[in-house]
Structures are given as C-alpha cells and as structure tokens.
C-alpha cells in the first residue's frame, strides 16, 4: 500500500505540475464563474419579484436554481476532463517504454494500478475542490442548509472515481494518450446516457434495469439530496471493476 501511495504521488504530481493542468483549471474556473454568477443573479432577481413564495422553499430553490445547474456543469466537465487527466497514466509509459521499470521492480500489478488510480483520482479532487469554491462562496455570504449540496458532492466524488477508473482502463489499453481520451470520453457519455433513450421503447423490467445502470439516474438522486446506499455500492463496484480490468491489462503486458 505504501508503494501504491508512492506511485500515486508521482502520478499526481505528473498530472498537476504541468502547464496544461493550470490552463485547463483556469478555463474551468472562468466557465464556472460565468455560469454560476449568471444563474445566481437570475435567481436573486426572481426571488425579489416573488418574495412570499420564495420564503417557503428557499433552500430548495437556490439549490435547484443555482447549485444544481453548476453541479451538472461540473459533472459535464468531469466527463471530458478526467479522461484527459488520466490519458497518460499507462499509455505514455508504454509509448516511452518506462512501463518496464514498473514491471521489473518488486511491485505487483495491483500496486501499480491502484497507485495510478490514486494519482488520477487526486488530480480529479483538485478539480472538484475548485468547483466547490463557487457554492462555497455563496454559502459563506448567505446561510443555507448544506444537505443537498453535501449529497451532491458525495455523488461527484463517486463519479469522479468512476471516470478515473474508466480513463485508467482505456489508458492501459493503448499506447496513444489521444486514443485513450477519446475512448474514455465516449465510455463516460455512454454510461451517462444509458437507458435515456431505451426507457421510452423498452418493456417495464428493461426500464428498471437501465435505471439501475444509468449514471444519470443515480447522480440525480444525489443532486436531489438523497444518499442511497444502492447508488454508492453501484458506483463503487463499477469503479472497482474498471480498476480491476486495468490491472488485468497491465499484468497481461508481460504475456505478449
């Protein structure tokens, strides 16, 4: 485990200490501030107009009117950004032939994979932390119950883990970081939209199954303030599954 952490630390610094990461984070902050401030102002204007109504469901209103939009946007960015952060984790090592160092060191493939996952995940956490600045600031200025916001971030923590695992898996499949990004983004989008179309046309039980599979459905629960054990278990197992796949691929590179 200590070794996995050492690998994780190296990978984390390798992702975060780059000009690319800084510029991506600046672009994200810019987009998020624009979107956040715009919806905040809109919301402020609307609650001025109907004061009476706003008092009763105040906390929900700001959550839905401002935070939910922001959180959806954050999630959308993560879908695209996390594969870009994780693209090099294994692909680059294959291309530059540095994977051999890991494979000939007294390290197990599991330690390598978990280490790389940790590195990728922590860089995702940096993104989440930046995204938290905006609702954090709003909370600092006004006094809202933080329940739904907290549950949403639990959801974001979980999906970030999943995106990282998926990104890591695709990075392990190829020598090309670009291919890894494209496959990772596609996979995330598929996970996200699974069932959306099918819900209309399939039978009752199919709808049920796809509701359980689709990320969108689970994430919406979190956005609404619910922390369902089933969602947590589902997202964690899916994450573990992809980390496991990545481990298998890394191990199999000995068996060419």
């Amino acid at each position, binding site marked *: 485990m200590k070794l996995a952490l*050492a690998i994780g630390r190296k990978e984390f610094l390798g992702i975060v200490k780059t000009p690319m990461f800084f510029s991506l984070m600046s672009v994200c902050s810019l987009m998020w501030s624009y979107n956040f401030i715009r919806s905040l102002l809109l919301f402020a204007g609307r609650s001025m107009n109907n004061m009476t109504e706003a008092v009763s469901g105040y906390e929900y209103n700001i959550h839905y009117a401002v935070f939910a939009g922001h959180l959806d946007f954050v999630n959308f960015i993560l879908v695209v950004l996390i594969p870009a952060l994780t693209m090099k984790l294994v692909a680059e090592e294959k291309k*530059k032939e540095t994977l*051999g*160092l890991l*494979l*000939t*060191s*007294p390290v197990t493939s599991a330690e390598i994979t978990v280490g790389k996952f940790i590195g990728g995940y922590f860089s995702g956490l940096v993104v989440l932390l930046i995204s938290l600045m905006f609702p954090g600031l709003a909370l600092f200025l006004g006094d809202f119950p933080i329940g739904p916001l907290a549950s949403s971030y639990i959801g974001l923590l979980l999906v970030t883990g999943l995106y990282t695992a998926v990104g890591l898996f695709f990075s392990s499949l190829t020598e090309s970081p670009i291919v890894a990004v494209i496959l990772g983004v596609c996979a995330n989008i598929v996970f996200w939209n699974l069932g959306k179309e099918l819900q209309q046309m399939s039978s009752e039980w199919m709808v049920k199954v796809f509701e359980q599979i689709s990320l969108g459905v689970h994430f919406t629960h979190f956005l609404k303030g619910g922390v369902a054990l089933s969602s947590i278990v589902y997202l964690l197992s899916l994450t573990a599954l992809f980390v496991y796949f990545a481990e298998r691929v890394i191990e199999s590179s000995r068996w*060419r």
Partner: protein
Amino acid sequence: MITVKNLSKNYGERVAIENLNFEVKKGEVVGFLGPNGAGKSTTMKIVTGMLAASSGQVLVDGLDTFDHPLETKKKIGFLPEFPPLYEDMVVEDYLVYVAKLARVPEKNIAENVYMALEATSLLAVRGRYIPHLSKGFRQRVGISQALVSQPDILILDEPTVGLDPKQVSQIRELLLSFKGKYTVVLSTHILSEVQATCDRAIIIDQGRIIAEDSIENLQKNIMGKQQVFIKVLRNQDQVVADLKKMDLNMSVNKTADQIIVELPSGKEDLEQISSKIVQLNAGLVEFHVRSQMDLEQVFLQLTSKENPS
C-alpha cells in the same frame, strides 16, 4: 546465481529464443553476445520478469522468478535497451522514486541514491531535468537506476549503445569497477566490449546458444589458431602426405591449387613446415600465414555457420 533452464519464447508465430540453458555464478561478469535479433533483449526481459516465458524456467538464487517474482526482482537491477527515464523528473527525484519502487527502506534511500550518483559520476547533474541531459548522461542515469537498490545482480542490455568513443570507454571503466561487487550480465553485439569487461561470453544467434566459454578459452580454442595457405608448383600430394606425417598438432587440407594447414599459434611449427616443403623441392611459391583470428572473426564465423543467408 542465475540459472536458465530450457527457456523458450515465441512472439506469436515468431520464435525469439529456443531452449536456452545457461548459468551465471556469483560474482561473474558474463557477456551476452549476439547479432541483431538474436534474442538477447528477450532473454534479459524474461530473466528480469518484464516478460513471461513461453516455456522453461529461470532461477535467481535458487528461487523461481515466476513463483517468487517480488523476492527475485529485489535482487536484480536492470538497464533495459531503452533506459526507462521519466521526462518530467529531476535526476535525483527519479532515483528516489526508483529506490522506492525497489522497496529500499526509507532510511537508506538517501544513501543509496548518493552511492548510485557517485558510481556513475552524476553528482554534478543530480538537480537537472532528465530531458536536458545528453545521450551519454541519460545512459548513465539508466545505469545508476539499476544500481540504486544495491542489487546483487546487474543486468545491462547494451549499456554502451549509441555513445561516443570517450563515453564508451568511461562506461567500460564503470563496468570494470563493478567486478567483484556485482554479478553482471551484459548484452552487446560489440566483441571488444566483451573482451574488455567480461570473464565469460555466451554467444547467441537466432535464439540459440552457439558457444559458451571463458574469454581465455575462446581465445585459446578458436581464436588461438592460425591458418597457413601454401601453394606449390610440383608434388602437391607428396607435400600433403609428408605434412600429415609430421608430428605436429595440426590439420592439413588441400584444395585444387592450395594446401590449408590449421595449427595453434607459434613460430616454431611454421619453421618446421616451411623447411619441410623446401626440402621436398616442391617449388614453393606461396606461404601465407593468417594469424590469430580475433574474436570478431570467431563471432562472424560462428554466427554465419548456422545462418547461410
């Protein structure tokens, strides 16, 4: 220290190495010699656990590398064909990371890194970014990476490839300084390297071992021979018969127009042969001695025997 038993590896249909058997004893410096594509790198990758063998077994210190990967990898420092350097790291940080991967205890890491930097004369560039280093220095970082865990065994795949002559001789000196401290296996297709640094050579071609001996023996048995090409105008058969009768350790063959004698190096035997022919009054017109094949010729001879193309 290293025992390789019936080792084979196929890449799909392509056979890279076939039924290799050899042993490396503790403290030995062994040269793994062969032309391009002979299977040197493949063998080394299997011994270090980077690749799995198709069949056969590798024992390191009596432990099977397949059943005990962690224990055996701990004992080996490996410089692959392409040094595995991270382009976004400083030399010293890189070595610290490699030491961690090699499970060097936390308290020894600084010391080991210093030792590895010192051994490869890298102390002056320890703070530099790896991509800013010249090829020779990168190669040295590769070697110091193999040293940093203070392993018992060093496996170096073409440690001097692509370096200028000065750097080559520096690396060779470094290799010589390893004698007695490490068990070393180094691969190369340069013979002088083996002559300069190794106790023993394993010559491999097309995935098979075609010769294996100490440098001394190789020189004595194969290289220590000289060939004499003799042309006479008359009585060629008589000359051949008489030469064969002489009590010398040599082989005599004749072709249409010349006699080829192969015998151990030395001038006395040559004198006896020449005076014999002159005695016979056979009309000696040519007496051409090709002395001592060097390792280069042996190598060419050995590796072209099996491979007519």
